[in-house]
């Protein structure tokens, strides 16, 4: 094997170089582990760069009444109480420390009058809580982490895609990957693997997500025997661009509403008064997305099928200062000057609350040696994520995953690699080259996106989802028979053929989980079951690989301690 494949060995292999992966790598390096970071893209291009609004952390720099308890309460309420309470508690308690640390590593946040980190309002947060850098907070975070990691000395394997996790007698042992540039395979042997691969948005056509978001981490973990959880909870961000067609789905940051942006329908009505008169535009994302969708569906949408979002009542200089990339995005891509007139916005597939099931303290999955953090992991956000809680999630649980992965690596012996698993992964990855006259993988992808958009979108019914399962089975068959042309050298058609499998696995998991959850909760809205069901409010859906079929069962949420119940009971 060693002759046949380029092989690298690390204590900790981190898959994904976004905020969670980099933070995990930094922590594991700090523990003295040898760390490899594998990334599908170049370093510094991860989806985290697109995070705009800020990092939620109860620093209480602007609103002195804030603290971890209100942050915990907001997160649980936003997640409709389906969150893993321990993760929500750790997240609220540790986020301020993680932000301060980031500042001490060189991140430059916007400042308060008295020289501290400035915080802004955001949907679902009781206090002004989001530490931010204009509307490019994610870029600041990525650069800061990237530079620190590079300086500490991790090995980065850029433009390298994992196709299979390797196991050794029930524990994770490494991964098989290929270099995008050459198409050659590479084997990673590792005592611990951290999945920080982000979400699954590319299974929908209207999405704010980049090409990388194909659910690889979740699908790889599932194939290797780890459990997935809460897969029915897919967040549609209320404000994506809707016009022109080429830009459909590109994110319009929630910071526009955080800074005072107002939503109106075609008739000029401020329609959030009807859906959430208390929080209005700063209601949670699930509520605002459904409200816009309903306005459009009932004939009160804008010319291009969205709602108007207006910030032009604020001084032009203020808008340009606080929302510079939104100003440029609309000016350059839509010919709209947002300091003078409204934007047209509508829901866009944005974030996956579900993912790899992990243990709260260590971020370890049900497969020993496999850890997960950030969007790839489930639990923190429950049925709906609050804006700003993603970047803090990356820092808090990225760090925890890195720490636990390094400790795990100290405790276990080097794994053995199984030649047969590697061989099987290799043949499967190359299948599309060996098949003649099959379909273009991009055609299968387009049809998958149509199925998910029309049948497993914002509003769901039993009938639609049963149909979706039939369609997904046909698509799985088609995906197994695609053909690719050209060589293995940087061949996007081939990459798509491989990623299709991940997208189909997670799409099936989403649909199966959504079909059985006969209630509406957070981001999961059933037309046939419009109300929350008290019994479902106590249960998580768990997905696992049951032979060649997808297993699904319910597990009762862990019991919350009385102290935390007390925090939730306070009416604030």
């Amino acid at each position, binding site marked *: 094997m060693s002759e046949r494949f380029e092989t690298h060995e690390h204590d900790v292999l981190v898959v994904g170089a976004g905020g969670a992966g980099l933070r995990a790598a930094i922590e594991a390096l700090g523990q003295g582990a040898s760390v490899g970071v594998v990334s599908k*893209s*170049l*370093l*510094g*291009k*991860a*989806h985290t*760069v*697109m995070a705009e609004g800020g990092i939620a952390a109860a620093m209480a720099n602007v609103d002195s009444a804030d603290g971890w308890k209100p942050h915990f309460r907001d997160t649980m309420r936003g997640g409709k109480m389906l969150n893993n309470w321990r993760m929500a508690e750790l997240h609220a308690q540790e986020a301020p420390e993680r932000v*301060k640390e980031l*500042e*001490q*590593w*060189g991140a*430059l946040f*916007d*400042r308060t*009058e*008295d*020289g*501290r980190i*400035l915080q802004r309002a955001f949907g679902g947060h009781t206090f002004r809580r989001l530490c931010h*850098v204009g509307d*490019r907070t994610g*870029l*600041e975070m990525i*650069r*800061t982490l990237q*530079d*620190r990691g*590079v300086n500490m000395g991790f090995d980065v394997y850029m433009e390298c895609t994992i196709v299979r996790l390797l196991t050794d007698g029930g524990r994770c042992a490494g991964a098989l990957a290929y270099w995008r*540039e050459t198409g050659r395979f590479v084997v990673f042997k590792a005592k611990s693997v951290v999945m920080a691969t982000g979400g699954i948005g590319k299974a929908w056509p209207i999405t704010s997500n*980049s*090409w990388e978001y194909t659910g690889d981490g979740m699908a790889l973990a599932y194939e290797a025997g780890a459990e997935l959880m809460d897969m029915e909870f897919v967040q549609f961000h209320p404000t994506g661009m809707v*016009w*022109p*067609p*080429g*830009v459909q789905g*590109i*994110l319009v940051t929630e910071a526009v509403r955080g800074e005072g942006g107002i939503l109106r329908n075609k008739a000029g009505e401020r329609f959030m008064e009807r859906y959430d008169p208390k929080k209005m535009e700063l209601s949670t994302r699930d509520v605002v997305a459904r409200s816009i969708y309903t306005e459009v569906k009932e004939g009160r949408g804008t010319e291009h099928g969205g709602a108007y979002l207006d910030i032009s009542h604020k001084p032009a200089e203020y808008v340009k200062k606080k929302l510079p*990339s939104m100003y*440029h*995005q609309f000016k*350059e*891509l*839509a010919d709209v000057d947002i300091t003078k007139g409204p934007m047209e916005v509508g829901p866009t597939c944005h974030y996956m609350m579900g993912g790899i099931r992990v243990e709260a303290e260590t971020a370890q999955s049900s497969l020993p040696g496999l850890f997960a953090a950030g969007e790839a992991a489930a639990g923190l956000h429950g049925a709906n994520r609050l804006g700003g809680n993603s970047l803090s999630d990356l820092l808090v649980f990225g760090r925890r995953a890195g720490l636990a992965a390094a400790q795990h690596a100290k405790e276990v012996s080097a794994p053995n690699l199984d030649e047969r698993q590697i061989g099987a992964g290799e043949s499967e990855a190359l299948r599309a080259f060996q098949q003649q006259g099959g379909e*273009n*993988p*991009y055609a299968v992808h387009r049809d998958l996106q149509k199925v998910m958009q029309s049948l497993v979108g914002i509003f769901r019914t039993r009938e639609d989802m049963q149909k979706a399962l039939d369609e997904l089975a046909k698509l799985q068959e088609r995906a197994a028979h695609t053909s*690719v*042309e*050209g*060589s293995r*050298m*940087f*061949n*996007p*058609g*081939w990459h798509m053929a491989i990623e299709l499998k991940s997208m189909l696995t997670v799409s099936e998991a989403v649909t199966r989980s959504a079909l059985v959850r006969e209630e509406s909760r957070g981001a999961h809205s059933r037309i046939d079951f419009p109300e929350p069901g008290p019994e479902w409010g106590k249960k998580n859906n768990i997905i696992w690989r049951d032979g060649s079929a997808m297993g699904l069962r319910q597990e009762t949420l862990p019991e919350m301690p009385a102290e935390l119940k007390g925090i939730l009971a306070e009416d604030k």
Partner: protein
Amino acid sequence: MADATLKVFRGTKDGGKDVEFKVPVAPGMVVLDALHYIQGHLAPDLAVRWNCKAGKCGSCSAEVNGRPRLTCKTRMDALPPNEPITVMPLKTFPVIKDLVTDVSWNYKVNKKIPPFTPKAGADWKFYQEDVDRVQEFRKCIECFLCQNVCHVLRDHDKYEQFGGPRFFVRVAGLEMHPMDGASRTKLLKDELGIGLCNITKCCTEVCPEDIHITDNAIIPLKERVVDQFYDPLVWIVRKIRGAAS
């Protein structure tokens, strides 16, 4: 719907040629959309780098009609109608395949730069006016368009002696950070070769983030180098002090 003709470079480091593709045009379409159409319908193996498609990641740089641009921000309706649109890889970096180039040199340069080093005893209280200037440099999305147009690299191949505008911007972001205590002027002079820049501002012109690379980063850094290494008064004082000690 009208069709546009794209002439896209197809090939590797060993050579290649422009290949024509006809692509249907939709309102507001950008060049990256056209490249995606080609991948999806005509040539699935066309190699293109991209990530966010929203001007925030800096991955999709190419030379469109001879001009270095982010293809995700280059609208088809802003280009001359009824003429083929040429899309070529960045010239300054070696081609890997089609529009994908080998930009690894940039990552090597980056490693030479000493990291953010907090001043001893910093209290971490500083103000918006302290960060306004530095935040400009930190907007950089590493699209490497500035590196691509810089003649020190593009025409004179000074990869060994020169860092390029991107890394002057990065050094400026560190040097002018209100809490940073390290000095990188010697590095600028000796390893990043800032003296080779003759401030023609080509980099500033192509920056999609509108960073005033030349005026706000390079010139102030050149001044720091001059103050430290070439100021005659300082030089004399140093000589005397050096002799005394």
